[in-house]
């Protein structure tokens, strides 16, 4: 999927999603809102952390070019979503990056835990595709265009 990704430093949305079908659906939804070309997709927690903190494969990256929003699935290989969230919110440099949990889990436990860690939004992926399109489109617009955050 890397070939589909935009240049690493121009990324506005970091999508952390292990399920390629969900990732495709998400990208399609973002595309419909003309946001798809600014999305970078990683398929596990470890890669997500490396990308954000410019480690490992992403050591060459400039950390200062943080994405405008991170769309985070919870059930991830290697490092799970809540761990990724905790690390982002625990670090001074990354704490201000908005993180939106985009998950299939309706479990209250997950929701409560995410909010405790400082998540900015918690969105349950609808099964209905129309609703899914609406949700993703709206959250993209909101976090990329409407939301203002400190420089």
């Amino acid at each position, binding site marked *: 999927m890397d070939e589909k990704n935009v240049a690493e430093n121009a990324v506005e949305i970091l999508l952390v999603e292990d399920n390629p079908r969900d990732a495709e659906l998400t990208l399609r939804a973002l595309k419909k809102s003309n946001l798809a070309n600014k999305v970078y997709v990683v398929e596990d927690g470890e890669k997500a952390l490396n990308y954000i903190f410019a480690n490992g494969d992403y050591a060459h990256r400039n950390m200062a070019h943080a994405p405008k929003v991170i769309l985070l699935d919870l059930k991830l290989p290697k490092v799970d979503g809540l761990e990724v969230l905790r690390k982002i919110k625990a670090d001074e440099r990354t704490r201000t990056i908005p993180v939106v949990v985009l998950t299939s889990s309706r479990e209250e436990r997950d929701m409560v835990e995410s909010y405790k860690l400082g998540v900015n939004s918690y969105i349950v992926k609808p*099964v*209905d595709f129309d609703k899914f399109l609406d949700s993703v489109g709206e959250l993209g617009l909101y976090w990329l265009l409407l939301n203002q955050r400190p420089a």
Partner: protein
Amino acid sequence: MRLRIRTKLIASFMVIVLLMIVLAFYVVVVSRKTLQESVGKSSIFLADETMTRIDQSIYLRLEDLQRQTKDLLLQKTVLGSNAASESLSDVNNDLSNDLKETFIQFYERKYGIRIFAEILVTDEYGATIAQTGSSTDYKQDDKEWWQAARASGFSVSDVAYDERTGIHGIVMGIRIDDEEGNFIGVMKAVVASDDIIREAETATTEYETTAVRLMTTDGRVIYGTKAYAFLEDVSGEEFFEQIEGSSGYFVAKGRGRERLFSYARSKGYKSYAGFGWILVVGHDTREVLRPALVLTNRIVTASIISILFGVLAAFFISRSISKPVVEVRNAAEELARGNLDKRVAVTSSDEIGELADSFNEMAGKLSESYTGLEEKVRERTEELEKANLQLQVQIIERKKAAAEIRKLNEELEQRVSQRTAELVTVNKELEAFSYSVSHDLRAPLRAIDGFSRMLEEDYVGKIDGEGRRRLKVIQDSTQDMGKLIDNLLEFSRMGRKELKTWRIDMDCLAREVGEELRLSIPERKVELKIKQLPPAFGDRAMIREVFANLLSNAFKFTRPRDKALVEILGWVEGKEATYSVTDNGVGFDMRYREKLFQVFQRLHGATEFPGTGIGLALVQRIIQRHGGRVWAESKLDKGTTFYFTLANEKEKVDG
């Protein structure tokens, strides 16, 4: 203090006798005193009478002398001497002779004793003009008797020894008056004490020990029945000190004995004032009080006899009482020791006899009942032993049973903890399962739906009508599957979720849910009636789910009705509140009511009334978790009523 009957009786007799003796001695003392008084008083009377007689006799001599002053010869001689105003040189004249003859000798002859020892006459100047004895003094006017007689008519001097006559006597001076009552001279007479003693001698009594004593006021003896010296001073003697006043009596020592003295003082007679002489009559008390002594002796004797008799009587009476009593007591003691055949042999018919009879009767009954009792005791003992044995057997059995129960209990506990552990594991597995269902089952569904939609969109010209219909079926099925998963998850979550029990305003909650439901399906016109529901205790979120399911069911099954009616009621019975949700919908066949609350059981077609078949199962699970009941009543085509109960008070809810 414990006293035997005998002692008590003797003591009481002694007390009575003692009282008698005290009484007797009181009588003795009183009688002695009375006797003393009577003798004393009669002796006073005697003394007084004698004394009066003495005074009277003295007065009589005075009278005799006064009469003599009127004698013609005497008058003449005195007047002559006064007229001559010179003394008669010779007193052995006619007058002297006459006086000697007619006066002194006359009395001597008359009484046999010499009463007048000497007569002397003076003129108004005190010169002696006649005398019966020899005279040495010529002038008498310096003498006491002379001056006193001239001044007050006569004078009497107390008894004294007269040196001129050589006798003891009383000197009397008498004034001589003429016929006109003028003082012309004084006559002197010496009266012998014998004359007076003569009168005292008449004082006699019936007593042998009587002694009479006449004394001058200063205590000199004039006369006494016992030997005495004339004018002997006895004022120092014991009895004399007790003489007070005019008369009285007293007991004092005299002559070495106890004597009763009575006395009376001279009171004089007529114009003669008396000398205050004292006449004392004395008796030995032993003699005069002899009757009292005799009485005392008799009483003492009688007392001693009565004491002896009383003691003896008390002894015998007490013996007659205590002996049978002691016998009864001994018998009772023997009875107490166990000799139940012991009887008392008392023949007397008084209370003691009755006591003995009663005792014998009692002993008889005791013996009888004891025999019966022994029998009974033996029987009871046997019964008790038997019962005891049975009880021991039972106890052993009980112990065995208890041990078994304990063992079973332990096993049960072990099993329970085992099961609990298993359940915990299962629960965890279930949790993990539902988590993965929630997460993983949805992802493929989303893909199916999403990709079929993408297919529809991207290949719009290449898919014909039938192809699109089939895509639609895929999409609808995906939707259903999604709902099913959601409901199933909800159902499983309800079973695990912790209850948060609060007081719920059921009325408010029902209205809230009803309103939301109405807003979610604005095309439905349903009349919803909610009639003032009582509050309940429970988890508000869960009870909300109950109302939501029941109301949405009611709305759903009333769809064919032109006038859809849903009514919610509530009432309280005891600690339980019951709520009902009634609709006038299509209803169901009561034959299938068992299936009503089971998961995935549906009584209506999915096309007619869509649903997952989980709603009522969820309702039942929630109500059951609240400790309540839920049931339904229905008539096909008429409508359905769902009932559920909740606690109306806090403590009944335990989660």
